[in-house]
């Protein structure tokens, strides 16, 4: 196989017939074999970590959440079908029946398979649409395809509700990728997290696809509130326990329900040093302290004030955002102090949106996007502080 690629290579290099498509060739070629690039200049050895390895580690950190998420989508739907007797129809149902499964929520495989039938098309659409833009910009701009898309494309479906119409997801992703990332120069130059930005676009363009109580279980005509909205409506008797939130067999966006597996992902990222523990700690404290204050203040009209602060860690998208979203190094603050403040700000904003805004009892996405925009501003305090400190040192002579 190596020989085959070596033979093809001249066509794609400078002067070759398909020179324009070099980014595509490079992508496939270096996916299969490490690139044979030798160091030039004066630094002769390099660290073993490159962008491919970085992204594959993030990918593996997300994977448990993704697999569990797929299972949970099936489990939620099958449970609903089992208990209500609503009969789903459509292509998905045909495939499911063709494969010989039935809607039995106690059957592990049936749950997983039914979830997969919802997740896979969404993931494929993301890969095709996102991949198209990524490669198009790479070819036109003549740079190589950056691996960061591998992660974006997995994150994006995981933060969507299972029932979202595919075309809406595709349109939002296109706008989000192009205007959130590619126009700024692609990977490493975007100022917001592209997956979150796409979700925000979806939220504002097609609110019915992503809000309300209808969308969280993959069954048409069935409505079930996420724990957060349930709490907002009913208060402490909202029907879930802390352990439910930790384990995650609850309705919600595909990947975000299991706080435990998100935590596992976060631990992988911290141990490998790819995610910053500073932003994670910051966000954790920001959320914890703010909601604790709300608990102490209390409220008779807004139930969310009374949601125990530790519940906030396990319900909604908080853990998922903490592990995989806020840790995006490009859109986060970059100074060590700035990272902590950035995390605190996002955690604080998250709590505010969740608790104070009764219309929308979830805020991780908005809080992180808000944080992204403030990240350079936060850094500028730390950078300017250093510049000031430095100029004071000059005053001696």
């Amino acid at each position: 196989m190596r020989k085959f690629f070596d033979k093809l290579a001249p066509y794609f290099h400078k002067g070759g017939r398909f020179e324009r498509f070099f980014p595509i060739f490079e992508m496939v070629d270096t996916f299969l074999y490490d690139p044979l690039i030798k160091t030039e200049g004066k630094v002769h050895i390099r660290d073993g970590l490159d962008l491919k390895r970085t992204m594959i580690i993030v990918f593996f950190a997300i994977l448990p959440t993704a697999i569990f998420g797929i299972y949970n989508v099936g489990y939620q739907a099958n449970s609903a079908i089992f208990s209500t007797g609503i009969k789903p129809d459509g292509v998905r149902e045909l495939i499911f029946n063709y494969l010989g499964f039935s809607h039995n929520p106690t059957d592990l495989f049936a749950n997983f398979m039914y979830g997969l039938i919802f997740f896979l098309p969404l993931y494929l659409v993301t890969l095709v649409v996102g991949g198209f833009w990524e490669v198009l910009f790479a070819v036109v701009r003549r740079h190589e395809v950056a691996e960061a898309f591998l992660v974006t494309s997995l994150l994006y479906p995981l933060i969507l509700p299972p029932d979202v119409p595919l075309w809406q997801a595709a349109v939002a992703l296109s706008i989000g990728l192009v205007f959130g990332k590619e126009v700024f120069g692609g990977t490493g130059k975007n100022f917001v997290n592209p997956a979150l930005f796409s979700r925000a676009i979806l939220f504002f363009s097609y609110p019915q696809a992503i809000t309300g109580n209808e969308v969280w279980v993959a069954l048409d005509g069935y409505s079930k509130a996420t724990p957060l909205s349930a709490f907002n409506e009913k208060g402490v008797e909202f029907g879930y326990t802390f352990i439910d939130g930790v384990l995650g067999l609850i309705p919600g966006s595909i990947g975000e329900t299991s706080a435990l597996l998100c935590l596992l992902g976060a631990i992988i990222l911290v141990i490998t040093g790819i995610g910053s523990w500073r932003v994670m700690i910051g966000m954790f404290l920001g959320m914890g302290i703010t909601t604790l204050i709300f608990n102490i203040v209390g409220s008779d009209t807004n139930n969310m004030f009374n949601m125990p602060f530790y519940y906030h860690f396990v319900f909604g998208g908080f853990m998922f955002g903490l592990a995989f979203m806020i840790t995006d190094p490009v859109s986060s603050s970059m100074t060590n102090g700035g990272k902590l403040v950035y995390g605190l700000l996002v955690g604080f904003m998250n709590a505010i949106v969740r608790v104070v805004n009764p219309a929308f009892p979830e805020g991780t996405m908005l809080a992180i996007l808000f944080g992204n925009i403030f990240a350079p501003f936060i850094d500028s305090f730390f950078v300017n502080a250093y510049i000031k400190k430095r100029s004071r040192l000059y005053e001696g002579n």
Partner: protein
Amino acid sequence: MMMEFKNGLKLPLPKNIDTDLTEIRTESFGIVTGDFVSLKPTIVINEGEKIRKGDILFTDKYNRGLKFISNVDGYVKKIYRGEKRRLIAYHYEGESGPYHMKPNFSLNRLDKNNRSLLMDDLINSGLWISFRERPFDRVANPDHLPDKIFVILRDTRPYAPNYNKIIVDNLNYLLAGIKVGSCLTDGEVLIFKDNNLYVDIDLPNVKIIDISGSYPSSLVGTLINQFYPLNRNRRIWYIDYQDVIMIGKLYLDEVVDRKKIISYGYEKEQKLYLACEFSSIKGYFDEIIYNEDVRIIAGTPIYGRRVDDETMFLNRYINTVSVLKEVKERSFMGWLMPGLSRYSVKNVFISKIYPNKITFNTSLNGSYRPMLPIGSYEKVSMLNTPITYLLRSIITGDLEMAEKLGVLDFGEEDMAVFTFVSVGKIDYTVYLRKILDEIESEI
């Protein structure tokens, strides 16, 4: 005073090499102009002409201190030029060895009032070039007056020789050299040493600072950033311990002895050589011949000059010669493999747990990508500067920001550690030189 540098790059390569000393006897010498930043040479002695010890070989158009002095009785063999007749290397041959030279003053009569005569001694002996200047990282200009002189008695580079032993063996010369150096500035002379080295200096303007920490805590950029951050109005000179010893020899023994101890490293193999400045490094290798499988570096793997037949001579400023295997094979899906032999500062390979099989080669270990700040820079940085922002201003050519964040503290070698850890494989040494040149052209 004491200072402990945290972080840093702890490469699994040998340090403090301490073996038997082998003297290199070679008649082949060469000055590689690439070691001297923005040198504009004027040839004094041309190809084929005879030279004697102490003759001026060539000079620099702008810096009267930058004179290359012959250390042999022999002849100029060849002058290699590249594109646009740019001088690449100046080869000369002949018998080397210490020679007598009487300085203008004896050590006891030295003081700041006869500074210019003292400088003449150093320039004419060829030792002046061991002083370098920052900002801009050039050979020191004798017409400038430095605010401080940094004397570095440490070397944390991989494969570096056991510096403390060399210093202790030559302590008298070192002290004499420091005394000479103390006359070159009206400000302080800062001595940076290990705290287990005892140096007794009783000079009013000399200050001793004990340093501990791994690479790059011995590089002058790290020290400047900590102890005397530079701007356009400030200036420091710096010098390495073996050069101070040479200057001491000139004043104590009245000889110019330009021999240095040079370490050699190739994977697990290490040696120490006694060699003359600018001498050929061909004699360093027993079996390995110069071929496609290995890269020979005048310097260390982390920062040095790659040599070829024309430039196979010692690096003037790094006392190490190293050999590195060239990468030849493309491994299958290396980004997915556990990585037993790959090294990373991050915990991403099995090699963090079983470090025995780590090998280094010349692979870039990836492809060129945009800057992705996942904290690697902060992890190795010993600087007070917000490093990601400094590096970003350097690659985007933001002169104003770079200068505010202290780019003038640095030379190319200081960027080696950040180039090493860069996930996007960005060579910051190149960008740094570019931005320093741009700032200088503004002044």
